[in-house]
């Protein structure tokens, strides 16, 4: 009797690991082939392409929807992801460095000022989990994911776990014939009749947010990014996009960013502070965080102007630290 049960358990275990191997292999194959926006296909395509860029922008949806890389120059591209914040940007940069795919001249990283507070760190680490495919292949991603808990690495016993979550779209999106295509990572938000409503309600929700304690690990990641750029001999620039309303935590976050960037000799352009009045105008906004397509193009031109000024080392102006 016991022998039969033990045999049954062994068979089930073998079945599970066998299936896991097959599923893992199949998904790896699909992942490597994928060049669509979903399931990390854009990043995958970028790692595999031979095209050389001068400037690369990484950030969240505020970059996807607000910066048009084509207006910034010919050899500029965008690898931003909606709802992905600073640790994700560092992970992508680390991965690009590993694959020798960092841009030739400038890496622009959009930063959200709530990211400097400890209250948001859990979410920043969650963002990196989007890149679990590279767990074990990239040290920075592996160590960041391991920060979720001491048992986190146990999940990776199953190779299919690397495809948990978003990567399931590798199977389902072909069924729907969906392959998001964008203009060089730019997804403009078209003006609509609900914009004002969204802005108002978003502002109400934003006003409820309170972040107070500085994240002690934040500057380590900035230093890590700086070191990567130094090794690749490229310029690192942090930007923070414009906001309709600047809550208290953003002002505090701006001071923290200023201090960290000054200490490490990194340029930081805070458009929210520099152009506070210019963007305090309801018709420019799709919601409380994102500009609509017209305003996005204007904002991109402002970014271009500010980047030009940065290239003149003697120039000193408000909101930028050299």
């Amino acid at each position, binding site marked *: 009797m016991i022998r039969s*049960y033990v045999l049954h358990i062994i068979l*089930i275990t073998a*079945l*599970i690991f066998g*299936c*896991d191997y097959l*599923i893992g292999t199949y998904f790896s194959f699909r992942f490597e082939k994928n060049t669509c926006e979903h399931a990390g296909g854009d990043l995958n395509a970028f790692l595999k392409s031979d095209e050389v860029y001068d400037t690369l922008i990484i950030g969240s949806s505020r970059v996807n929807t607000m910066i048009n890389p084509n207006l910034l120059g010919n050899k500029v591209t965008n690898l931003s992801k909606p709802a992905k914040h600073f640790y994700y940007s560092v992970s992508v940069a680390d991965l690009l460095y590993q694959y020798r795919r960092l841009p030739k001249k400038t890496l622009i990283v959009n930063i959200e000022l709530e990211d400097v507070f400890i209250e948001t760190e859990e979410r920043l680490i*969650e963002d990196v*989990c989007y890149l679990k495919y590279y767990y074990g292949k990239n040290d920075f991603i592996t160590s960041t994911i391991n920060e979720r*808990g001491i*048992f*986190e690495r*146990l*999940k990776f016993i*199953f190779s*299919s*776990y690397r*495809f*948990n*979550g978003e*990567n*399931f*779209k590798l199977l*389902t*999106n072909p*069924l*729907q014939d*969906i392959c998001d295509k964008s203009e060089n990572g730019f997804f403009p938000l078209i003006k609509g009749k*609900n914009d004002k*409503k*969204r802005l*108002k*309600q*978003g502002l109400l*929700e934003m006003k409820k947010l309170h972040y107070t304690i500085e994240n002690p690990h934040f500057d380590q990641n900035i230093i890590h990014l700086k070191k990567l750029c130094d090794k690749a001999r490229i310029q690192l620039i942090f930007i923070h996009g414009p906001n309709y309303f600047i809550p208290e935590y953003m002002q505090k976050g701006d001071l923290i960013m200023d201090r960290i960037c000054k200490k490490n000799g990194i340029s930081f352009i805070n458009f929210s502070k520099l152009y506070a009045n210019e963007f305090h105008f309801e018709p420019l906004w799709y*919601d409380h965080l994102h500009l609509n397509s017209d305003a996005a193009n204007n904002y991109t031109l402002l970014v271009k102007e500010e980047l030009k000024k940065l290239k003149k080392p003697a120039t000193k102006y408000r909101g930028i630290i050299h």
Partner: protein
Amino acid sequence: MLFNSLDFLIFFLSVFVVYWTIPCRARWIILLICSYFFYAYWNPLYVFLLFASTLIDYIFGLYFTSSNNSWKQRVGLIVSLSLNLGMLFSFKYYNFFADGINVLFTGLFNHKVVPNFSILLPVGISFYTFQSISYAIDVYKKQIPAERNLGKFALYLSFFPQLVAGPIERAKDLLPQINTANKTLSYDLFKSGLKYVLWGLFMKVVVADNLATLVDSKFELLSSRTGGEMLFAMILFTFQLYCDFNGYSRMAVGLAKLLGYDLLINFNYPFVSSSFTEFWRKWHISLSRWFRDYIYHPLGGSKKNLGITIRNTAIVFIVSGLWHGATINFLLWGVMCGVLMIIEILIKNYFLQHIYLPARLKFLGIPFVFSLFVLTLVPFRSNDLNDSLLIFEKIADCSFNELYFWFADNRFSPGLLGLYILIFIEIWFGLKLNSSWNIKNRISESAFYTVIFFMILLLGKDTGSQFIYFQF
């Protein structure tokens, strides 16, 4: 420690190994220690609260047994109930009532008269308080003998698989199991427990957590949503709530089985109900039974006249609303459910009594009951009363713009994929009115659970999100 976390997996594996390797006599002690550790892991201070609740009813249980004076026993019961409900009131309802009083007095005298306290709600307090009240009443009514072993009684109240969100177990069911020392782990028991855990985990991490992402996105920036979007979000929320709570309950039953205990099945395919009476017999069964036995029946139930039945039904649903949370929204939810139930009672009494309805036509009531239940959940999900009213207003508008595109984009999203499987399984087993898993063929059974396992691995949200019912 959440059932859907790795911390819990390690904890449970350790408990499981130690529990089945030590002598039978000492097993309950290990379970008691582990249960208190499980609770302390969340907040060590509130362990004292749990112990206080245990001690109160342990002492009163012995008192009811030793005293022959019925008047003294009645006073004892009142004191026991007051202490239990007093604790619940202090932690859960104090601020709700203080706010109400302050609103009243601010209007009259322009200043607050009752201070508010920011108290962290002890997780599971509503569940273990109800469990402990049921014990006190049962002992008082001589339905069960008082438990003389404080440790075993403490385990009855703190048994970790069901401590924080039920099922609310009766002493007559759980205490005899605690007192049965010679439990053995059979292969069938192990397999059955594992299946419950796996299916519960699937419901939670694949269906509920992924649906939560879709639902939450619709509840953000509410004012810009259309009625169709909100109606669909509410339907998804209904499944989210069901899968979240039923997932937890199934895991609780499975974990208890792995330790040799049988717990009450909390849900019995409630969406396959053709009337609200049937629905409430199948939804959160342990709580419904508690209300039936300790509120509805003592008040007279439905045995007297129609007026009394309606009054009792109203009381039960208002209390049920407040049990879920000390907010106007939960109260409104309770009132809505009560009104629907009363309407059904009236229809049954005045119309259906004279009309013969063939049993096979009863299925027509299923979508009707489901739709109305979805609407009652609007205040349950909303942040406040204004949001609830806004959602009702939007749903009444019946504008279904953007709904098609939203569904087209999300129809293969993990939450909906999980939901398709769940609905298929629920209908399959629900229509057969068969609550047990009778997949005869061993190979297809193994294949089914292997698929479920990989669905969890691939589609499960691994963020360790909390269970909705933990807040109650």
